[in-house]
């Protein structure tokens, strides 16, 4: 497919919340163009969208980057926001610190980090209160290693 890692980066700016998803949509278009399988593209889209949403809602913006190598992709979201005081609490489905105004638009459901974890093979959060947060999520392309497919998990439960 290609040898060198492909890197794409966008700045996510505070402002209109309804515009969230621009960077994720561009990542999706890139992955489709690179011929990445659609199941992987959908998982990457969820990870990128939730990371983008978190950076905007909680940190007023940041940078979202995606690196694609022959065997995996990595999505990295970095911000200089307030940091996450309690990651275990933030990982709890339904827990959110988003404002009522943001929730009324359908954001801040407290499902962002769980959605990212469910759709990635590894997720690492490096956060410091008052300094910012860096989130790194990887998705491997090899089918044998893709045990954590979100949609596969849900299908198995039905």
């Amino acid at each position, binding site marked *: 497919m290609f040898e060198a890692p492909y890197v794409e980066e966008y700045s996510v700016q505070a402002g209109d*919340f*309804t*515009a*969230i*998803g*621009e960077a*994720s*949509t561009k990542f*999706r278009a890139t992955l489709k163009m690179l011929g990445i399988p*659609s199941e992987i593209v*959908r998982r990457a*889209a*969820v990870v990128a*969208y*939730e990371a983008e*949403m978190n950076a905007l809602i909680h940190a007023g913006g940041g940078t979202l980057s995606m690196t694609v190598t022959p065997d995996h992709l990595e999505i990295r979201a970095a911000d200089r926001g307030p940091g996450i005081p309690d990651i275990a609490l933030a990982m709890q489905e339904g827990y959110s610190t988003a404002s009522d105004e943001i929730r009324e*638009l*359908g*954001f801040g*459901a*407290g*499902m*962002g980090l769980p*959605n990212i974890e*469910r759709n990635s093979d590894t997720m690492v959060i490096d956060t410091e209160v008052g300094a910012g947060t860096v989130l790194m999520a990887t998705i491997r392309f090899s089918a044998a290693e893709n045990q954590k497919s*979100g*949609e596969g998990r*849900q299908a198995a439960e039905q």
Partner: protein
Amino acid sequence: MKISEIVRQLDLKTYSAGDGEREISGVVSGDLLSFIMAEAREGWMWITVQVHLNVAAVAVLKDVPFVLLASGRQPEKDLVERCAAEGITLAGTPFSSYEAAGRLWETGQRLRE
């Protein structure tokens, strides 16, 4: 069931035509964007009362070709434009999400995978 059939059977108002020939294989209803990001599957229909631009982003990212706005909610202009640009069918109904889904169920088509 084709999108055009659903539009006709439920007498929906169409804001963006999309691909009426596209088959819908399931339906999800909800207004929390992250919930839809988690639950929606490719080729599904999404019933919601959210009417802002991000509805289109979620639909694009999840390969959802048909969004139905319930309870008479009017789409914002940029949502209509984005759906049209992305080939997503955007339609509206005065019925609530509950009643719209109920009427769809009553057509005898059980849209679920």
